[in-house]
């Protein structure tokens, strides 16, 4: 029983980080219809941006987070402005290729400045343990879950009730009709990339704290795909459920036999897609007869 609780907490913590990483992917896909293969690298860059502010520049934690968030937002807007805007209207495959290239560039830039050896980063999440239902679980995992829940809830509220959130969904639905309402589609695109980079920074920060700060953070982007495909490419709540499912399944599988955790998410993914081709919460195309 205690092992089960432990696995559940670990699974949820991984799921929370996955959901945050997937959130950026979904935001970009939803608003701009771009499939961003550089999402994992945004995580990597985000984590190193925070490292630079916190460790190298010795800023206080709160200030370092703000500086990191601001830098990530600028990076996101810059990527949209310089790399993706000229590609509006081009073949989706061409755009995908460009994001793959972007991933390589981002990774190379990080290597250029920080090398390939993992960096020491002081733990920012609490180090102690707590007892949950008779099992001992590390506090940092619980805090990671809490942070992810707060961020995801904030985005959900933003999309449902704020004017800009509704505008973003309107752009996702019909760009030309959104233009006619006076919505600046360019600004919405920039906003989506800024949000994606910021959520990636938070995910990268949590991940660096739980695991370690190294090049390997980038490969985390690959695990995002089962999450977003499971939850639905364009659904924010879907990323939460998708992240939790993938996180839990791989932890439980790990508990049964080491190595199974690598395969289990994809097995679940295939099973769910057989039943729901648009993912659990993906928007089916509305067709009225």
């Amino acid at each position, binding site marked *: 029983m205690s092992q089960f609780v432990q696995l559940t907490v670990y699974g949820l913590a991984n799921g929370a980080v996955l959901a945050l990483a997937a959130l950026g992917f979904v935001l970009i896909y939803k608003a701009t219809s771009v499939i961003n293969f550089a999402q994992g690298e945004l995580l990597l860059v985000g984590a190193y941006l925070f490292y630079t502010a916190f460790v190298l520049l010795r800023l206080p934690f709160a200030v370092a987070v703000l500086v990191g968030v601001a830098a990530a937002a600028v990076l996101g807007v810059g990527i949209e402005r310089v790399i993706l805007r000229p590609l509006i209207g081009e073949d989706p495959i061409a755009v995908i290729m460009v994001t793959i290239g972007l991933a390589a560039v981002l990774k190379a830039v990080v290597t250029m400045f920080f090398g390939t050896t993992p960096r020491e980063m002081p733990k920012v999440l609490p180090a102690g343990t707590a007892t949950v239902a008779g099992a001992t679980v590390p506090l940092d995992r619980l805090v990671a879950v809490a942070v992810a829940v707060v961020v995801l809830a904030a985005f959900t509220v933003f999309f449902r009730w704020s004017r800009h959130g509704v505008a973003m*969904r309107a752009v996702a639905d019909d760009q030309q009709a959104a233009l006619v309402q006076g919505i600046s589609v360019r600004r919405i695109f920039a906003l989506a990339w800024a949000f994606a980079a910021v959520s990636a920074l938070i995910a990268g920060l949590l991940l660096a704290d739980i695991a370690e700060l190294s090049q390997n953070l980038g490969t985390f982007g690959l695990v995002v795909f089962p999450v977003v495909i499971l939850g639905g490419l364009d659904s924010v709540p879907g990323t939460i459920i998708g992240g939790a499912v993938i996180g839990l399944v791989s932890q439980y599988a790990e508990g049964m036999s080491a190595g199974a955790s690598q395969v289990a998410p994809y097995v679940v993914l295939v099973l769910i897609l057989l039943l729901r081709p648009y993912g659990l919460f993906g928007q089916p195309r509305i067709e009225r007869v």
Partner: protein
Amino acid sequence: MTSGRATSMSDREPAVGADTLLTVDNVEVIYDEVILVLRGMSLIVPRGEVVALLGSNGAGKSTTLKAITGLLPTEHGAVTEGTVTFDGADITRAEPAERVRRGIALVMEGRRVFEHLTVHENLVAGAYTRGAAADFDRVYGFLPRLAGLRGRVAGYLSGGEQQMLAIGRALMSDPRLLLLDEPSLGLAPLLVDEMFDIVRRLNTDLGLTALLVEQNARRALAVAHRGYVMESGRIVLAGTAAELADNPDVKEFYLGLGEAGGRRSYRDVKHYKRRKRWL
């Protein structure tokens, strides 16, 4: 009908002046840098009036609306000559959002509601430029049926309800000029009646100026003060609604009536049209 300049049938054809809200002056539109769609296109929308823009498929009516709303760049089109003036300001090259802020709203052809948003969220999107000044009560009051559908997802509404929502959404920006692109297209006859009634009330109850693009010439001229007839990218006929409705060419081409006033078959009209084009 094929002479170079538009034929004005009225001495009361308005001159550009203080009472003019919108002026399209000698506009040329080219798509993809080669396809000439509008040439020498000119029209005037006086303040407080409903103006009908008639013409057959491909005459350039929708392109004219896109030139007025700034949508041409999204379709690789551009205004290469002439000017569009709204309330005294040259908006020929303004961003679409700036035109909305100035008071131009468009009800697009084919309704184009945001399908995955609720009715209310569609109105929120329509009020984007208004910020905190958005007046939902005015729109729900003008189109009471929408109030009952508030929480429904727009994609699942009926065609008539979607058209009503498209109009409500356009009203949310509190426009002074409303452009309507074929609002009656694809609706059942009863709904067509309702739609033209709404267009009339937009003008009489809300005091809006409107430019109504329609293929249904008879109904459009019934609610309009004046009208223009377009063909092959320019205006070929202009006048008050009553004059146009009485014009033999309009009767022949757009109202489907023969000289004697009887209904003509579509085949006759088509034949007549083809013959006339070569004269």
